[in-house]
Structure formats: C-alpha cells, structure tokens
C-alpha cells in the first residue's frame, strides 16, 4: 500500500532555533498514526508543518507528499484549497479553538462554504448532519448555540465536526483530549475511532500519553528533541521498545516510587459535614438568588503521616474544598478541625494554625511572583511566625536542600528554573515552616512524565523522612496509585467512595468510581508482561 501522506527529511527552525531535525514518516490510507513525545519534542510543530500553518519566523525544509504531491512546493492559494478539504486539524484547547461570536452550526457550515462545496442552505443542512454525527444532535444541542454555552467536551465535538465536514482524507488531532476530563476523553477517543473506521479517514494522533496511543494507534512514532527515535506497529513497539528513550518514557509513566508507611492512627485533620455554596450568576429581581452547592456534606479524616488521595473530575468541588481546608474561603456548614483546633476562614484564623498546613499548586509558572528572588519566595511563610527566625537564610537553605536544590538557588529569580525545578521550589516553600500537612493540588499534573517520576520520588522520600501528611489532589489515577495510602472519590460535591487506594482502584464499589477507572486509558497488561518478561 502506498503512503497517503509522507514526510521526508522534514526540518524546521523558528528564528534560527532548530525545532525539527529531519523528521520522516508515512501514513497510509485509513490508518491511525500515533506521534508521542514530551513537551518541546516538536510534535505539535510537525502537525503545523503538515498543514503549512507555521508561526512567523519559521523556516521549514524537506518534503511533504500528499498523495504524491509535494506540499512544500505549493502556493498559499493551493494550500487553502487543500486545508479543510483533504486535510484537517483539531487542536488541544477546546475553550479557545472556536470563534466565540459565531454559532456552532455556522462555524461547521463555513468549512463547506469556503470550499464552495455547498450553498449556504445546503451547507447548514450538512452541518447539522455532521454535528449529529459527532454526538450533538440538533434536538439535544440547538445548533444556534454559541461556544461559551457548551462544555469542553462538546466544544471539542464541534471542532471535530468542523474538521470532518468535507470528509478529509487526513485528520490531525493535536492533543485532542489533554484538556478534558478522563470520562470525556474516553468519549472523544471513541468518537475519533468510529470516524476513522466509518469514513476511512487517516488519523494522526499527537499526544504525550503512551496509554492513549496504545489503545488508538495502528502505528506509533516516538519523538525526542525534534527527531523520531523509534517507530513501528503499536504492539511490536510497546512489547520491544528498542530505543532507551521510549523505554524511559514508558517506565516513567508507570513509575512507582518506593514508599515506607508512615501513617499513624492519630487523626490530624477532620472534616465534618462541610458545605460550601455559591450564589449562581444571573439576575433575579425577586426571591433569593439560586445557590450552587459546590461542596455537599463532605466528611473525612487525614491521619498524621498519612498520604490521602482526592480524585475527581473538573468541577466536582476539589478546588473549593481545598480553599476551605486552607481557611481561605468560609464554609456554609459543618466544621474542619486541624489537630483539634477549628479552622475559620479569613482573618480570624490564627497564624499558629495556618503554619501547620501548606500547599503546592499545579502550575509551576503561576506559583511564584516573577519579581521576587527564590530566597524571598521560599521565606514568605515566615510571615506566619510571631518572631522571624534567627537565621532565615539557613532555614531557606535547609528547605532547598530537602528538595535537592543547592543553597545558591536562593539568589536567583524564578524564571531561571525549569518547570520541574520550580515545583521543587514550591515544595521547599511548603516545607520551610515544617508543617504537619501539605496539600498537593494537582502538583504533578503539569509536568512531563520523566519529571513527574522524579517529583513523585521526592515526595515519597520527604514523607518517609519528615513523617508529614499529604493530601494529594489529582485527576490522574496512576499518580494517585503511586503516592497515596487511602483515596477519596469526589463527584458533584460529594465523596462517593473512600478506602485503601489499592482496593478502590482494583475493586471499585461505586458506579462512578468504576466509570472513572474504566475510562482511564491503559497500556494492555499483556504488552507490559511481554516487555518485562
């Protein structure tokens, strides 16, 4: 079989910085091709090169053959004709990928109209049909809705409908599910799979997640620093893994840090019947404003030295609960006690109570004031002490040493550090007051798998050495399995299941937990065995 699209020696530099270094691959008709790599590996730029939609300042060389025709030699007008008709693309961020001031049906119909494939009325009819095909039937989701009236998953469906409106031969999906919850991800992946089968379309699936390609792709290529380091049929690639980088990536994604049990029976933080409500937006002239209960009678206990996981999808109330636990937002019912003392939000919460609890956030880039040096950033919690420590610099150095950073890091600004190092600094800031409990709010979710594995090791080590308790909030079941003793599953503001992590993840009782676990993509166990056997 001949290739439908083929890249030969594709190289790319942006403002002189090399991004791609001689990438070659081929996609056959109706095939799903997975392109895997960590951030900065060049996988997204490969996609944009194929579409010839590179950012300004980009210089590409090499050949891209679509059915034997070299796209690099085509003019812009010819490329416009091909885009949307022969090849289409959907991107990662469903929230920003749609025009906010145009209805979804119009956006889908536009693909047909700009290619003069249909007159407006006919285009709309086809658009509705395509929307129905991607799971947005007009009677359930009115086609005259605007993007902001849809959920993230629905928006991604609209983007897919737009891309497949003209039944292109190639669909490039760049991290199509990364911004979505795991159950939504499963639905979108199933939709893409069905489309490939029914429409005979080739799919290039770009992702950082090995488990996603394992379940989707016929063939897989692994990218590292602008090169394809290994390529092959999915099963043989996963069972052999010839290239050390592929193997490292795989090991890191399933990394299990060595943990020593430190949990004691003594309760540290006790939440009882916690309720937190928000007033709903919208104007009502009479009567009380409708309220939304974000946290709905939540009760749980964290023991000293314990690592407790909290799992749930976006909007389930995890963040609201975190803020309530930290005493940042008031609660509307129940109570939260830390070491027997009640946490009251806002200015009444005593500093000595705040000192016992610190937090690490998800985004290593937003977690630090860019104008402060690391030493001052790590020392910020000293504000909670009645008298400042005698040797603040030594305390900061100690905290930095705890997370494996040299003492001279304190004199540098945060932009001089990588994402993984920043997350270490965030942990150092949380540890500097030697708290009893650290809340890790999706603290490893934004990191590449190899960095994530290192941070998980660090967390396991810190817990063993310092005996502190983690509340580990995550949407990623693999991570929760790796680092927690017990886990809470949260859905729509309630805790629906609670128990030993291993038990909950292997034999879930609540239907929601079962759905979550089933939806999480997995590398087949047989392949894992073959690899290690």
């Amino acid at each position, binding site marked *: 079989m001949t290739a439908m699209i083929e890249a030969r020696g594709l190289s790319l530099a942006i403002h002189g910085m090399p991004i791609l270094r001689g990438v070659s691959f081929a996609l056959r008709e109706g095939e799903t091709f997975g392109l895997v790599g960590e951030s900065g590996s060049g996988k997204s730029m490969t996609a944009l090169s194929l*579409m010839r*939609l590179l950012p300004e300042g980009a210089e590409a060389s090499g050949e891209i053959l679509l059915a034997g025709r070299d796209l690099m030699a085509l003019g*812009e*007008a010819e490329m*416009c*004709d*091909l*885009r*949307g*008709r022969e090849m*289409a*693309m959907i*991107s990662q*961020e469903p929230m*920003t*990928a*749609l*025009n*906010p*001031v*145009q209805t979804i049906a119009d956006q889908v119909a*536009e*693909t047909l109209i*700009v*290619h003069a494939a249909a007159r407006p009325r006919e285009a709309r009819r086809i658009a509705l049909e395509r929307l129905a095909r991607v799971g947005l039937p007009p009677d359930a989701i009115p086609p005259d809705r*605007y993007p*902001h*009236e849809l959920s993230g998953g629905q928006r991604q469906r609209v*983007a897919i409908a*737009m*891309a497949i409106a003209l039944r292109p031969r190639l669909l490039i999906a760049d991290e199509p599910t990364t911004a979505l919850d795991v159950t939504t991800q499963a639905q979108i992946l199933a939709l893409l799979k069905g489309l490939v089968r029914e429409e005979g379309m080739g799919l290039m699936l770009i992702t950082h997640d090995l488990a996603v390609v394992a379940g989707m792709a016929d063939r897989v290529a692994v990218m590292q620093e602008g090169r394809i380091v290994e390529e092959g049929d999915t099963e043989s690639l996963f069972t052999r893994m010839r290239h050390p980088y592929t193997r490292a990536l795989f090991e890191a994604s399933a990394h299990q840090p060595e943990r020593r049990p430190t949990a004691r029976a003594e309760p540290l933080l006790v939440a009882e019947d916690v309720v937190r409500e928000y007033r709903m*937006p*919208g*104007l009502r002239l009479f009567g009380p404003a409708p309220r939304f209960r974000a946290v709905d009678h939540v009760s749980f206990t964290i023991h000293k030295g314990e690592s407790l996981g909290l799992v749930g999808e976006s909007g389930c109330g995890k963040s609201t609960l975190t803020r309530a636990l930290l005493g940042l937002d008031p609660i509307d019912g129940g109570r939260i006690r830390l070491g027997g003392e009640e946490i009251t939000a806002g200015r009444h919460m005593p500093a000595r109570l705040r000192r016992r609890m610190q937090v690490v956030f998800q985004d290593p880039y937003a977690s630090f004031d860019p104008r402060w040096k690391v030493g001052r950033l790590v020392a910020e919690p000293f504000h909670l002490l009645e008298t400042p420590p005698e040797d603040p610099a030594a305390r900061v150095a100690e905290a930095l040493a705890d997370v494996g950073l040299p003492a001279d890091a304190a004199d540098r600004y945060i932009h001089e550090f990588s994402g993984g190092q920043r997350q270490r600094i965030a942990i150092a800031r949380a540890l500097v007051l030697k708290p009893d409990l650290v809340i890790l709010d999706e603290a490893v979710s934004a990191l590449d798998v190899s960095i994530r594995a290192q941070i998980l090791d660090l967390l396991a080590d810190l817990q063993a050495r310092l005996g502190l308790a983690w509340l580990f909030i995550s949407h990623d079941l693999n991570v929760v399995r790796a680092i927690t003793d017990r886990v809470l599953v949260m859905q729509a503001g309630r805790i629906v299941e609670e128990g030993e992590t291993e038990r909950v993840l292997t034999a879930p009782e609540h239907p929601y937990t079962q759905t979550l676990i089933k939806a999480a993509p997995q590398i087949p166990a047989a392949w894992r065995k073959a690899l290690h056997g």
Partner: protein
Amino acid sequence: MIRYLARRLLSLALSLIAASIVIFAVIEIIPGDPAAYMLGLNASPEAVAALRDQLGLNGTAFSRYLDWAGGLLQGDFGQSYTYRVPVAELIGERIQVSLPLAAYALVLTVLIAFPVGLIAAARRGRPADWGIMAATQLGIAIPNFWFAMLLVLLFAVKLHWFSAGGFPGWEGGLAAGLKALTLPAIALALPQASILARVMRSSLIDTLHQDYIRTARAKGLTRRQALLRHALRNGLIPVLTIMGLQFSFLLAGAIIIENVFFLPGLGRLIFQAITQRDLIVVEGVVMLLVFAVIVVNFMVDIAYGAADPRLRRRR
C-alpha cells in the same frame, strides 16, 4: 438580551441621576449663594434677594434640586440671567451647530479609522503598515484646534475653497450647512481617527493570534478570509469601547474648535456664560453635555451586547 437591556437601562438612569446631583452641587451649593455670586461683590442685598426669587433659588438645597431635576425632565433648564430668556431656548439654538458637528466628526473618524486600521493589520510589518503607524503617530500628537488653524490657513486663506468661519444656518440648505462644518469636522476627526485606527490595528492583531483563527485557517480560509470573517467581529469589541470614549472627546473638541471657526454653538454660549457668571446657563449646558456622553456610552454598551453573545447571558 432583554435582561441585559433592562440592566443597562437601570444603570443609565442611575448614572444620569448621579451626574445631575454632582452638577447641581458644584453650581448651586459650593458657591454658597449663587445669586450673590452671579451679581458680584457690589450688589445690594435687595438685588440679590430679587434675583434669588426670580431664579427660584429659595428653599432647601434638596427641594431646589427636586425642582431643577423635575424641570429638566420637562425640558425646562431655568432662566438665563444675562439673556433673560429660558436656557432651553438658548441651548435649542446652539445645539443645532454643536451636535451635528460632533456627529459629523464621529462619522468621519469611523470612515477613516476602520479601513486604515484594517489595512495596517492585514499588512502588518510591511511598508503600508509602517507608513500608517507613522502617520497616525503624528495624527495623535496634533491638537485639533491648532490643526483647525492650519486648515483655515491652507483652505480658506491660501486656496479660498472654504470660508474661514461662520455658519449660514440650516435654513440656507443642508449642503451649505455641511460645507461650513466640513473643515471643523476634519480638524476634529483626524486626531481621533489616528487613535481609533491604531486601536483597531492592535485589536485585530491580537485576535489574529487567537486559536480560533488557526482553526479557521485549518478549515481552508485564506488569511484575508480569516481576518474579515473571524478577526474583524471579535476585534471590534475593544474598538467600540474606545469609540464611546471618543465621543466625549469629540464633543469637548467641538466646543473648543467653535472658537477657531466663529461657529455659534454651545462653546460660544458657555464661555460667554462663564465670563458673565451666568451659572444657570453653565449648569444647563454642562448637564446636556454630560447627558450626551452618558447616553452614547449606553448605546455602546448595547452594541457590545449585540456584538458579543457572551455578555448577553451574564451580568
């Protein structure tokens, strides 16, 4: 949309009430006794009392405010002390010059700024963009009344295409009236058009970097199609805000520029009233100007709601 409209209307009414209170307080409360202030230091107590009576300035501040505001609602701005006629009559005459002038200038501003901003954004980084940016940079820096003088110097004194000033009135026909307002309108419009064109350009360039533009290009739209079909409408939203602000600059500018062209507009009226200490006229004209600014910004808000579906639902 109806809910959005109702909310905006409510805030319009509140703004007008608040503005009228501020104006009333400055004119009628801060000077102590406005009648004494208007007559000056040498006035006899009897004359002051008589004027106070005549202007209806007796009674508590609160009741006077209610009287004044009630009058405004019926189009009664009080009596001018110097002209001895109702202020509404004076305003009625003069507004026939100032309002058309500001509106004329706004139309010119938009007609110049939109295409220029669009061209600059479409050709960003190229010579056309560079030229537009340089020209508008200069345009922003030029005071409109000075530009007006230069126009008079060139078109009236040297070329004799226009008369140097004066206004024939609308009785002489629409064309003659518009002709008399053309130079002042150009002088007002060019600096504002420079600002608006730059806002338009940067707003369009901002939107051109959005993800949905890449989505549109991936659908097969050309650069130009993506600009016109997707970036334009989204980019227009900040432009609307600036247009609302510009109206108040244009109105203020119109009042200043009337001096250059000897136009019998609100500017002449109010500057004479200030020198003659005719507070009632000042109060009326200021209220009218502020009213115009608030109403225009209300209309901008409505246009906002029409342009951006996200605003209609919330807030």
